């Protein structure tokens, strides 16, 4: 798994200048993405996960400011140095994106086949006919029945699930190395969600592309991701393999997210919401941004920002609770059960 990464994000900061002041949407985010893996970025709305994806696509709004020490290394170059024309040869070609809402993401006045063919015409420089032939294959590949009959349809003639398949086909058209999926199933029915996720997994195995999967829903992460990064208030607070995050979580925010997620063995009445709302990133709080909502907050949390503490070779968490001076806290019951399960997985006895 730990082969050389295809994408390295280093010290990413993104600020937005607004009339009320500067919003610090991304505050020092670093992560790697390996070839063929799926990295899930999980967080509440406003945690900066969508800004991260937009930055990776070079699609931030004009008022975004990215400091010079931020780096996005992809194929030996820093994407943040690219000019707009150079970005255009990356977007949809080497890095592609699956959008959230299939009802509004397709151009209502253009035939779907043509919309799928567009990236091919742009990046592969092939004729319209050839591109449409390939678009037809893609439509079959994403499971659109009787694709031949529907290649000249307009989006309004299709259901949401079918449209999202078309959006997936558009993203896959030019065989991108990295696929960014921004909440690709949020707008869909549960049954359709599962179909789209299965489809993405299958296509990933066929094409060996890497996926960055953005979601607020830990539930869909379990079956999809190899690794998970949890974001809060513009920072990554914990990252590790999917098993480490699900069964050995260390950050109280991750505990909160897991606790607010229903599982098959959830007892009635144990589903808990995290109290409060994320901080306003116009004036990010001093120290640990989560401290104000954290029932396990330490005195130091409001004074100094926690560094990443190493849990394992692949698992890091930014919480003072992992400092050797910190008292041993007892996590919520649900988390204790997960920890117990983790120990079983490690072949050890629970204490």
């Amino acid at each position, binding site marked *: 798994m730990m082969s050389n990464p295809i994408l390295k994000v280093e010290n990413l900061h993104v600020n937005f200048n607004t009339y009320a002041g500067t919003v610090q949407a991304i505050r020092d985010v670093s992560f790697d993405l390996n070839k063929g893996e799926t990295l899930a970025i999980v967080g509440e709305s406003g945690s900066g996960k969508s800004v991260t994806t937009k930055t990776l696509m070079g699609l931030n709004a004009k008022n975004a400011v990215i400091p010079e020490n931020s780096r996005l290394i992809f194929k030996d170059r820093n994407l943040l140095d690219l000019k707009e024309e150079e970005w255009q040869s990356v977007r949809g070609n080497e890095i592609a994106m699956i959008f959230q809402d299939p009802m509004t993401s397709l151009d209502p006045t253009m035939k779907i086949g043509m919309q799928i063919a567009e990236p091919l015409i742009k990046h592969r420089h092939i004729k319209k006919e050839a591109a449409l032939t390939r678009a037809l294959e893609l439509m079959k590949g994403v499971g659109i029945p009787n694709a031949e009959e529907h290649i000249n349809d307009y989006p309004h003639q299709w259901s949401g699930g079918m449209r999202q398949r078309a959006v997936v086909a558009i993203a896959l058209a030019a065989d991108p190395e990295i696929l960014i999926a921004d909440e690709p199933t949020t707008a869909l029915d549960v049954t359709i969600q599962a179909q789209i996720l299965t489809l993405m997994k299958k296509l990933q195995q066929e094409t060996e592309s890497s996926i960055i999967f953005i979601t607020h829903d830990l539930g869909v992460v379990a079956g999809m991701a190899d690794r998970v990064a949890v974001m809060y208030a513009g920072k990554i607070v914990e990252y590790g393999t999917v098993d480490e995050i699900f069964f050995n979580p260390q950050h109280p925010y991750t505990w909160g997210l897991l606790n607010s997620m229903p599982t098959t063995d959830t007892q009635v009445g144990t589903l808990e919401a995290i109290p*409060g*709302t994320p901080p*306003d990133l116009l004036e990010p709080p001093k120290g640990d941004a989560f401290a104000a909502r954290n*029932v396990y907050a330490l005195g*130091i949390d409001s004074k100094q920002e926690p560094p990443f503490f190493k849990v394992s070779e692949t698992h890091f968490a930014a919480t003072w609770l992992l400092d050797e*001076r910190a008292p041993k806290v007892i996590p919520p019951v649900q988390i204790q059960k997960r920890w117990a399960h983790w120990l079983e997985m490690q072949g050890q006895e629970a204490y």
Partner: protein
Amino acid sequence: MMTANTEDFVIVGAKNSDANEHISKPALSFWQDAWRRLKLNKLAVISMWFLILILAFAVISNIFVPQKDANAFNSDKVGVYKNLPPNSGLPIPGWDGKIKAPGDNASTDVYESQGVPDGEKFILGTDNIGRSVAKRVTVGLRISLLVAIVATLIDLLIGVAYGVFAGWKGGWIDNTMQRIIEILSSIPNLIIVTMLGLLLGNGILSIILAIAMTGWLGMARQVRNMTLSLKERDYVLAAQSLGESSFKIAIKHLIPNMAGTIIVQVMMTVPTAIMFEAVLSAINLGVKPPTASLGSLISDAQAMLQFYPYQVLIPSAILVVVSLAFVLLGDGLRDAFDPRASED
């Protein structure tokens, strides 16, 4: 790096949730927020003050320029006072009482040649029977604004009542009422205005009615659409389940929540009404002479455009500037009420 003391490693827990909910942006109500955005639009603010001044002027001018004054002329001295060009008393070219007739090389001082007594001057000139254009225009503006504003208020009443009723009742009532609007709006406004103008005669009231009969369609359509969406809102459903009467719900919940849209629509209706008043005057269905409106002043003087352009251009300019101010303010209000515009 580690400068912390051991006492920092004590659990203090979450802060109370009030501190959590702190939002750095100042909280503004809908109207305050709209006002803040409107103030950013300089043209709209200028238009608003301009309109306030114009309306105040129209009301106050009743005292110092009564209608009789503006209509009166001395039939013995028409030859002396007729068609005098605007004279500011200052040597401003084109505004000094001199006029260059077409074909002439030098301009002549009309005040001198017609034998107007020294010291007497008309700041906006006189018309073809020697009445002061300034006074005529003051009265004309008054009448035009009166016609337009009253017609718009009638539109407002009919349109809101019709729209709320249709939208609230829904079903076949809404359907029928929609068909009626559809039929009426496929008949050109000009025809409806002309027919009513013919039927009701030349009084100010009949002009107001004729104009009001066409303007309410747009208002009714918008209000009906908004009612349809508002009546599904929780607070309306709650009021309903509490047994509030439909009339009370309309007054307390529906209309206040569409006030923004209604205000914008009103701002856009006034210039249309001003324009239709002028159209009626031009097709001989306007105010009865000697009463003046901006429209009647324009159409009466139009034949003399080549020789006395000021008699046409002055009321035209006033009509345009007033309409423009309403449109600019309407645009500004539309942007101010539209939260999507706040990102700019």
